[in-house]
């Protein structure tokens, strides 16, 4: 993992600096997470009145569960789709805003605003917009002959949730790209221009490498977001259907655990989900971070 060449010399200071975050993490995250992991080895009733230790039974059942394997592939498609769409679109916007000096603030405000919209609302809004009866989008699509129904067509459902999830993430990515672009020194871009490089070339040879730490941050966060935070959208719009075609892993965890109150199996699923994301992140740090220029 990357680190500075030169560091400060201090024995206790780093620990003191880390203490607040570490302590809170330990108490409010690690300890409950360990309990959740422990729960994944149990079979118990929701109220916790009785529990039986069942070793890895909750895990082995996942392997044979066709709907779980389906969830894996659906999640993969979804995560890749959302990350790709939202990162490219937001980068495009950020670069444009960087150019448009005077009206930059206006555009930035407008483009970040959707992120502020409560998740409670955005689910509802997407439901309205794509509603086969009263929605605008199906109406327009009907005019060109396409019968949109995400309740029956699996493709429609996946497209819908990718759009809905990316929409929110575009605002998020955009904001950080803009912040990142601010720290690209003018002198460098000017020097490149003097050397005769056009704007596109300047971007890829000078700007993007300097933007790569931000891009790396966003890539990791986006994938994590797609895996975890998209729950409210799916809940509001497709409920994992039709026929499980949008039943991403975290939704399955939620449906089984929160709603179905099968705590053991749901805990097992979330442990597996956590391991998948950890693996993905380690992979990214190992291989992708090499290309990042600090």
């Amino acid at each position: 993992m990357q680190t500075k060449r030169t560091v400060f010399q201090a024995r206790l200071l780093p620990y003191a600096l880390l203490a607040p975050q570490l302590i809170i993490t330990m108490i409010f995250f690690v300890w409950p997470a360990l309990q959740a992991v422990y729960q994944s080895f149990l079979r118990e009733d929701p109220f916790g009145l009785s529990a039986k230790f069942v070793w890895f039974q909750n895990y082995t059942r996942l392997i044979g569960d066709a709907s779980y394997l389906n969830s894996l592939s659906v999640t993969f498609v979804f995560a890749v789709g959302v990350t790709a769409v939202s990162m490219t679109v937001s980068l495009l916007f950020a670069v444009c805003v960087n150019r448009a000096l005077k009206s930059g603030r206006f555009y930035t405000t407008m483009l970040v605003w959707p992120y502020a919209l409560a998740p409670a609302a955005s689910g509802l809004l997407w439901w309205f917009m794509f509603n086969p009866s009263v929605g605008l989008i199906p109406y327009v699509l009907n005019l060109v002959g396409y019968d949109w129904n995400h309740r029956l067509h699996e493709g429609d459902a996946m497209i819908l949730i990718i759009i809905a999830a990316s929409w929110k993430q575009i605002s998020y990515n955009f904001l950080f790209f803009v912040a990142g672009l601010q720290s690209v020194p003018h002198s460098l871009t000017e020097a490149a221009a003097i050397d005769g490089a056009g704007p596109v070339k300047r971007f890829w040879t000078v700007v993007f490498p300097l933007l790569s730490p931000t891009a790396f941050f966003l890539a990791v966060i986006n994938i994590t977001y797609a895996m975890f935070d998209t729950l409210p959208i799916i809940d509001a719009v497709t409920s994992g259907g039709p026929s499980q075609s949008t039943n991403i892993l975290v939704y399955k965890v939620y449906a089984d655990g929160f709603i179905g109150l099968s705590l053991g199996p749901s805990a097992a699923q979330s442990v597996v989900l956590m391991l998948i994301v950890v693996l993905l992140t380690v992979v990214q740090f190992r291989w992708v971070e090499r290309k990042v220029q600090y």
Partner: protein
Amino acid sequence: MVENRPFLSFLTHLVLIVGVLIVVFPVYLAFIASTHGPTDFMSGLVPLLPGDQMMANYGYLLGSGESTAGAPPFTLMLLNSLWMALLIAFGKIAISILSAFAIVYFRFPLRTAAFWVIFMTLMLPIEVRILPTYKVVADLGLLNSYSGLVIPVIASATATFLFRQFFLTVPEELMEAARVDGAGPMKFFRDILLPLSRTNIAALFIIMFIYGWNQYLWPMLITTEPHYYTVVMGIKRLANVLDGDNQWNLVMTGVILAGLPPVLVIIFMQRLFVKGLVETEK
């Protein structure tokens, strides 16, 4: 800009305008919904132009607050959410920037382990650890309290990760110069690193504020007293009509009202987006 290319400028603006139109369309729709009556949305194509119920709807919500049935008035919920959002934003940024500083600028045993432990907070969804976390909070006596609402939420890794990325890009010369001048780590942090981080802090503040502002599940779970109600809880409560008659228009009015303070934060924070910071320090 470096050179004047009108075509590119035109294209830039075009992309942005189209982008804004598409991205802001759902928000526009929410606004439209808030100006109509409750049933205008279900009986045909969703209307695209404002209706005439704007004063009625907004007045109703902001007024007595009895619209949310026992929940405190809307203005009180807005204040509550504001307080939570500020606490969470400040808290998160404060502890994360210190942690990132420690991880990047020092070498000590367990450094990598500490980073990964912090980082793991992103990896386990809240829905799964919510029962055990509730128990921890209850055992510590933090139910129905601001501490219980805020502290468990501020340990996330996003901010730490971002600051880490940023600190790694800060040139080594700055730090060496500071050391040569005899400045200790905290002086370096305060006088050099912090100002440099301004843009990132601003961006994070926006995100964290909005995150704290939109809190729903956790406050719903650990509070039973109405004066801890957040604004999104109020909106959800309006919408939760089970078999009955959904008042979409009031829900959307609530959503728009709830969305306004974050917009102010976004506008305000952009002042800290200053260009070319790194090079002026040279």
